């Protein structure tokens, strides 16, 4: 064999080089995140004030606030949660607890995967075609919430499934052994144990709802509408669409820039707070219930 000391040094050197490179590349991703966040926070903070959060937009959306967009996004989040969470959780329970391994389960999982893979703009097309036009909801909170709800449905189902999977089967068997029915077992044993994980996942999915733009473009979002909705059949402004409008196609893009930074910051803050909340919950519950 060759001079082993030399080979060893070469092996070690290439390992050191690659590991350093990989560390730097990973660090650069963290850096990118901080640049994006830092950029939006630093530029956005001066724009944020009490008035900004509670006033109507004025002067072709170059002044005033984003109050109606905040309320609109809040309505859409709530609406799609009401639609997607119960159905998604029930669907997840059915797929994981009731179906046996076989064609039905595989089919349901494949369909959930397919739904998750559909681009958000296609949801927008579908929502417009079915809810807005065929069902005559018009551009409305209802149509937008249903479209957004459909979009997060796969996320909710998967979260539920994953959380249920994490519960060791012995808990179920133990419950059956005591004479509990399937429903009782799920309700009293399985669900309470998996609830923390489900909730954490759901919180993350709310963040996703708040930022989606493509599905609401043609189902609910209003370009400029300085009033609050009165019913679920009203149109609303929404934060992500508002940001898109004032940064690309508003009446005065340069003048609106400050408003755009502020809106971007509000959007990022919503996501940031939800992620933080999910992580805190994960840690809190992680200590409380140890699951395998």
């Amino acid at each position, binding site marked *: *064999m060759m001079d*082993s000391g030399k*080979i060893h040094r070469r092996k*070690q050197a290439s390992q050191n080089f690659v590991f350093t490179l990989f560390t730097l590349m990973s660090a650069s991703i963290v850096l990118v995140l901080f640049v994006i966040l830092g950029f939006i926070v630093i530029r956005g903070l001066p724009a944020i004030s009490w008035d900004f959060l509670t006033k109507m937009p004025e002067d072709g959306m170059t002044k005033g606030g984003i109050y109606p967009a905040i309320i609109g996004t809040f309505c859409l989040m709530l609406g799609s949660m009401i639609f997607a969470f119960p159905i998604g959780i029930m669907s997840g329970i059915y797929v994981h607890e009731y179906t046996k391994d076989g064609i039905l389960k595989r089919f349901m999982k494949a369909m959930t995967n397919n739904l998750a893979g559909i681009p958000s703009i296609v949801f927008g097309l579908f929502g417009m075609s079915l809810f807005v036009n065929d069902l005559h909801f018009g551009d409305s909170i209802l149509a937008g919430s249903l479209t957004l709800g459909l979009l997060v449905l796969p996320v909710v189902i998967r979260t539920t499934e994953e959380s249920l999977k994490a519960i060791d089967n012995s808990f179920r068997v133990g419950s059956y052994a005591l004479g509990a029915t399937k429903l009782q077992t799920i309700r009293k044993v399985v669900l309470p144990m998996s609830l923390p994980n489900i909730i954490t996942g759901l919180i993350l999915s709310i963040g996703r709802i708040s930022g989606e733009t493509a599905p609401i473009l043609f189902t609910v979002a209003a370009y400029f509408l300085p009033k609050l909705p009165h019913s679920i059949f009203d149109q609303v402004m929404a934060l992500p669409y508002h940001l898109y409008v004032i940064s690309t196609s508003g009446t005065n893009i340069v003048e609106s820039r400050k408003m755009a930074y502020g809106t971007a910051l509000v959007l990022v803050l919503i996501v940031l707070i939800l992620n933080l909340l999910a992580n805190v919950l994960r840690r809190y519950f992680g200590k409380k219930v140890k699951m395998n």
Partner: protein
Amino acid sequence: MVKDYVKKPKVMAKDVNLYYGDFHALKGITLSMEENTVVALIGPSGCGKSTFLRCFNRMNDLIPSTRITGYVMVDGKDINDRSMNVDELRKNIGMVFQKPNPFPKSIFENVAYGLRVNGVKEAKFIEERVERSLKQSALWEEVKDKLKKSAFELSGGQQQRLCIARALAIEPSVLLMDEPASALDPISTAKIEELIYELKNQYTIIIVTHNMQQAGRVSDKTAFFYMGELIECDDTKTMFTNPKHTRTQNYITGRFG
């Protein structure tokens, strides 16, 4: 016993303690082995015999929060010393695992792997070495026509002999075997045992086994572990016919474990 002092030990452990976090897995083990002998490590599951085996090529490094004290010496060098190159050490100490674990590569490339990662480039040399290793592990006749095929196409027993060939290809001086036949059928097991017997002439072999008969058949010396302690180590014959400790006797006669 006089022999021990005459012949320099090939491998030696002196007062080795090993901790996984708070768990004290090995408690003050001292043991030495001469060149070209087979030492069997026996004991009930979780007694530390595999952990001890893994001290000799520092495989325990892979588990975080592992701490080791005492000396593990190979050829008179402390392998836990800072100056020791761990990949250099592992090149010199072959290892065969409990379950056959060939790489997702061809049969040929599996055996050539150790040479390649250690900087050997000459194709002819590699070919010769692969052939020799496969012959040594008594696999050559079965695979010589399908060296390019995936290693996963072999049977479990063949895969394990392939793993032995893989270990032999880089000419280690010590061979560690961690229950090498436990996942195999009786015929394959017999083949592996035969192989160990033949390899003894060139290698120092440490084998972990929970099969008493196997330990009796293949080893020169046997060491009995219990709860992280080395209870007893002696010539295999002595150990099986006349153990000093009742615990050893109980285990060997099958009263527990």
